[in-house]
């Protein structure tokens, strides 16, 4: 039987909740600490209005991934969370098997809260653990300890979440290879379905960025060793790397995040939220108050023409383990991949990129220097 959903185009929905208990020392994302109740309420109201408006654009689309990102989305009062989810369901055609993810941080959501959002329809939880080491968590400026995480994880399982992702970080202050291994081991023991492991990047406008030389981090070699260790030990535990920083049990890849890498459409709603829709990339201003006041104008807008789409495809798909499929590329763009991006040959020769006759993909050596290689391969106009 052919359903409506099969006929419709697929869409992802991203909803940004920019509130946190405290800002972490490395964080330069759009979020405020201790947003007052009134602002949160107005912000939530704006999200609802905006969802209604955007829904008109999304006619003819079926939404099969929804993602609540932050900030810390679970800081939203449960009533507001319900209202926003309701606005999603009532305005968009959300498929029955849609992946609906909510990010959370330990010690921000009670067992009851988690159980309620599970009932609302959220079926995937992404928990920001970062490290199992108390000293490292403190050094990052996280508000939680290991026990907080363990409680949240167990509460989530009890609430019925059978699809949980855990975020880890490496290359962070006070971390050693041993402590990172320990974090991985303790995480794997809990058997989450998905693990993300990100290398700390020091951004300018953060407390870390301002610390300059006083911030002592594992050096590039140590960070590379940690990455290698991470890939190896997660593989042993049954998690395969499907994207540079993302690891999953079979079939548990993040469908929403895959959209980004596969160049599929998504609408982002909320301050600083980005969209890729109708051949354009656009975003809301990061001004949270403005969004709460109902100012929804896009702050950046870029048409993605064929040339740009080709470049994006290299940049994004090469992040995936499967890489770029040569036949698909040629049939989509009418030019062989190795003709359009001829520089890639150099990196096949050097062993950083592999070509198996079908797909171009980074080798283990290539992944961790992918930015360098991409900047060589890509030609920006």
């Amino acid at each position, binding site marked *: 039987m052919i359903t409506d959903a099969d006929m419709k185009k697929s869409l992802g929905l991203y909803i940004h909740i920019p509130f946190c208990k405290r800002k972490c020392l490395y964080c330069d994302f759009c979020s405020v600490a201790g947003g007052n109740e009134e602002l949160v309420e107005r912000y939530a109201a704006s999200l609802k209005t905006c969802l209604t408006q955007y829904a008109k654009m999304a006619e003819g689309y079926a939404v099969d991934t929804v993602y609540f990102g932050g900030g810390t989305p679970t800081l939203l009062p449960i009533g507001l969370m319900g209202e926003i989810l309701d606005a999603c369901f009532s305005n968009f055609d959300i498929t029955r098997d849609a992946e609906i993810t909510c990010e959370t941080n330990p010690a921000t959501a009670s067992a009851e809260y988690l159980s309620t959002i599970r009932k609302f329809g959220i079926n995937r939880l992404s928990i920001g653990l970062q490290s199992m080491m108390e000293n490292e968590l403190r050094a990052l400026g996280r508000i939680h300890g290991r026990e907080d995480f363990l409680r949240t994880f167990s509460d989530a399982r009890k609430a019925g979440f059978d699809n949980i992702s855990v975020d880890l970080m490496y290359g962070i202050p006070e971390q050693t290879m041993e402590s990172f291994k320990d974090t991985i081991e303790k995480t794997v023991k809990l058997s989450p379905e998905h693990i993300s492991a990100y290398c700390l990047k020091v951004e300018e406008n953060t407390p870390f960025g301002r610390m300059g030389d006083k911030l002592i981090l594992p050096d*590039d070699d140590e960070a590379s060793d940690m990455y290698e260790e991470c890939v190896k030990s997660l593989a042993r535990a049954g998690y395969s790397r499907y994207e540079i920083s993302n690891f999953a049990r079979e079939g548990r890849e993040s469908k929403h995040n895959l959209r980004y890498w596969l160049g599929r459409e998504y609408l982002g709603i909320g301050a600083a939220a980005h969209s890729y829709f109708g051949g354009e990339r656009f975003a809301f201003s990061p001004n949270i108050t403005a969004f709460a006041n109902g100012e929804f104008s896009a702050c950046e807008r870029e048409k993605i023409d064929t040339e740009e789409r080709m470049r994006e495809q290299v940049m994004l798909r090469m992040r995936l383990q499967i890489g770029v499929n040569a036949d698909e590329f040629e049939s989509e763009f009418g030019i062989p991949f190795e003709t359009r991006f001829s520089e890639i040959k150099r990196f096949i020769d050097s062993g950083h990129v592999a070509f198996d006759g079908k797909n171009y993909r980074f080798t283990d050596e290539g992944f961790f220097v992918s930015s360098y290689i991409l900047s060589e391969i890509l030609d920006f106009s």
Partner: protein
Amino acid sequence: MSKAEMQKNIRNFSIIAHIDHGKSTLADRLLEATAAVAKRDMESQILDNMDLEKERGITIKARAVRLEYLHDDGEKYILNLIDTPGHVDFNYEVSRSLNACDGALLVVDATQGIEAQTLANAYLAVDADLEIVPVINKIDLPSANIEGVRHDIEEIIGIPAEDCPAVSAKTGLNINDVLKAVVEQVPAPKGDPDAPLKCLIFDSYYDSYLGVVVYVRVMDGTLHSGDRIKMMSNGIEFDVIDVGYMGAFGLNKQDSLSAGEVGYITASIKSVGDTRVGDTVTLASNPANEPLPGFKAVQPMVYAGIYPADGAKYGDLRDSLEKLQLNDAALVFEPETSVALGFGFRCGFLGLLHMEIIEERLEREFNLDLITTAPSVIYEVDLKGGERVRIDNPSNYPTADEIDVAYEPIVKASIITPTEYVGGLMDLCQDRRGNFIDMKYIDTTRVELHYELPLNEIIYDFFDALKSRSRGYASLDYELGDYVPSKLVKLDFLLNGEQVDALSFIVHEEKAYTRARRIAEKLKENIPRQLFEVPIQAAIGSKIIARETVKAMRKDVLAKCYGGDITRKKKLLEKQKEGKKKMRQLGSVQVSPEAFMAVLKLDDDN
């Protein structure tokens, strides 16, 4: 007033001093006191025209100005103040400027006493037969020791200083004493206004409207506008458009210039290369029998390759060098190509300061980003075939089996230092292959050291090392000596097995190993990690004498993107790509221009 009467009331003098002893400030005060410049109009230190000179506190090019002074005897005097460059690179120009004078004010800092350049300048003035008038400056400072300095001047230089002016150029105290001393002690110029014309060129500069403006001191004869003149060194003739004198605010025309006067000539001259400092100007119709003594064409002593950081700016660099050359006959350049750096120029300079000045002017006034190779002196090599060649570029250095004897230039250096630093400075000179000549006690606290030093040992960082080992108290002066046989080798560097020509240099055999190791280490620090391991090798001929390795890059990856912000990721990659465009490809290795410079600069260590 007859010409003879006028001559009686002219005084031609210059001010000489060690750097920072207040020469320019004193010049300002003299201008002010003679009302050539109203105080409110006065930009501080008017004689130093270029920004660079102001910043460095030194005078690079000579300038001259006429002051009018009413003396106690009721007569009006014309005082021509001829400024001199204050650095050893410009010694020849200094000597020509002094030859244009009849007297010199020797400024000595009352807190510092006599320094190396004080002595060197005093000797130059004595050589030029000048009447020396000592002036003790900075007497307003609490640490001023006026009597001690008077004593030193008499003892060390041997000229009376009992009644010499003691002033504060900064506050203007006793400035009139200086003017009085100039009139009373500096002799009036001699010279016959009716003899065949002889003018000494002591400076010239290019003006886009007037052509070259030539500064001269008329020694004999009289020059009128409209006369046809001849340069005695090269025989080139010009028709004089204007003659006149230099006021504080510009040129003032006169009908003529005659013996004893200091003034300018314009004659639609296109290049300062035709009006060399020290040359004699005479009349084409009635030439002098022989030129004034002492002319020599200045030769560059230091050579370096100058390349645009952005290869596309090669044409701009050439235009800029040509413009600078209009005003700087000592600057020479010719195109050269480097495998590593592309198209550029091999440039010759009078010395390291001259080189730095040119570099800074190219960067500041012409907005160019440059890569400059290590400075090199000129070596001479007797080939086995009997021919002698001059080498100004290490790339052209013959191979060991072609060389019979190699020669390098040495300098005669004089260092004045407080006694407590003598040991450290002797170690320094020894380390720089110095040959000790003698040591003289100036007084109980200070000595004068004489060394012969290879020029290539002092062109990099010798002056800085000297200052750091003497807490800034030692001073240096040197003059170029002879070429001496030397065991020289050419040191090459290889990145990833490929030789980088721009990094090669010539060094004494004994120094090769340490220098090779140091540069290899510096290369290692400054070459960013590449996708592959990069071996760095230093070699003499085919023999590797030092080795380092830049490990392969392992981490260059973008962190996660939140909320699907692909645009930001793209921008980061684009920025990275932009950054790469500025990189220089040295064989298969990418190096930023900054890193390249960091390797070439050796002055931060020793």
